[in-house]
């Protein structure tokens, strides 16, 4: 029912405009809530319930790699290589040079014994055959990043990551 405006009140109100605005507000709240749920799930990098993906690096599946599907510009992300079998270890890891050029390597744990460049790949060799190796990185370019990663003598695995600004 239209409100009878007091003649003395100099006010340029618009109730229908206000109602439209309320509808838009409520719609935007739903969108914001969905963004938060997405963030909790890991859709925007950082940390999240479904952020990390596991990929087997050997045909038997006794060594796997864990990497985040999404990252954020200049914020930490890690690649973890883990020997899950009872007696296997990690001696070398080959990572596409192009991928590492888009990352800043903060540290590698344990430190590699040597690093060699070969056919567009960087080959990291580890002393003492560790069972877990972590590359702690920071993405220094935004967008989609693809990389080929492999262990010596094993089939290469392709990973895809999206880095948010």
């Amino acid at each position, binding site marked *: 029912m239209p409100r009878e405006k007091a003649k003395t009140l100099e006010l340029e109100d618009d109730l229908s405009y206000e109602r439209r605005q309320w509808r838009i507000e409520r719609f935007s*709240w739903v969108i*914001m*809530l969905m*963004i*938060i749920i997405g*963030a*909790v*799930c*890991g859709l*925007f*990098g*950082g*940390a*999240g*319930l479904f*952020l990390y993906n596991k990929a087997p690096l050997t045909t038997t599946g006794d060594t796997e790699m864990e990497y985040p599907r999404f990252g*954020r*510009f*200049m*914020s*930490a992300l890690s690649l973890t290589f883990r020997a899950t079998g009872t007696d296997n270890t990690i001696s070398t890891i080959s990572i596409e040079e192009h991928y590492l050029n888009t990352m800043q390597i903060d540290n590698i744990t344990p430190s590699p014994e040597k690093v060699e460049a070969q056919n567009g790949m960087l080959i990291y060799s580890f002393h003492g055959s560790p069972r877990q190796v972590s590359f702690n990185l920071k993405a220094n370019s935004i967008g989609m990043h693809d990389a080929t990663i492999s262990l010596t003598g094993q089939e290469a695995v392709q990973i895809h990551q999206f880095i*948010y*600004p």
Partner: protein
Amino acid sequence: MDAVLRATAIYFFLLLIFRLSGKRTFADVTPFDFVLLLIIAETTQQGLLGEDFSVTNSFLLIITLICIDIGLSLLKNRYPRLDKISEGVPLVILEEGKPHHDRLKKARIDEDDIRAAARESHGLERLDQIKYAILEKSGGISIIPKK
């Protein structure tokens, strides 16, 4: 998820701290209060951002803080008891020109604060010209003059 958790933790921590500090803490902002607010803001910023200075992180923090605020306002609207808990209640500090000294003391207000509010809002000169003075939830003092 880290941004959402950090923003949620900071929001509720600040809500608790400011609620516990009393209504009058930042009602009349002195230059020192202002500096204190700046220091709190700076410290909060570091806690919120951590080492992640990406735009995405900022967006997520802002969206989370705004969403909690909207959610809490909706809940407070629905459950008045929650409004009482988070915002407090108004308090009558003067009736018919007579101040409630016990309430003034607890709320950390003196008669001069009431006189100042009376002068500013209604141009009143004395306490006996005031019917009610109320310490509002916001920390401000509202004055209802005698007719």
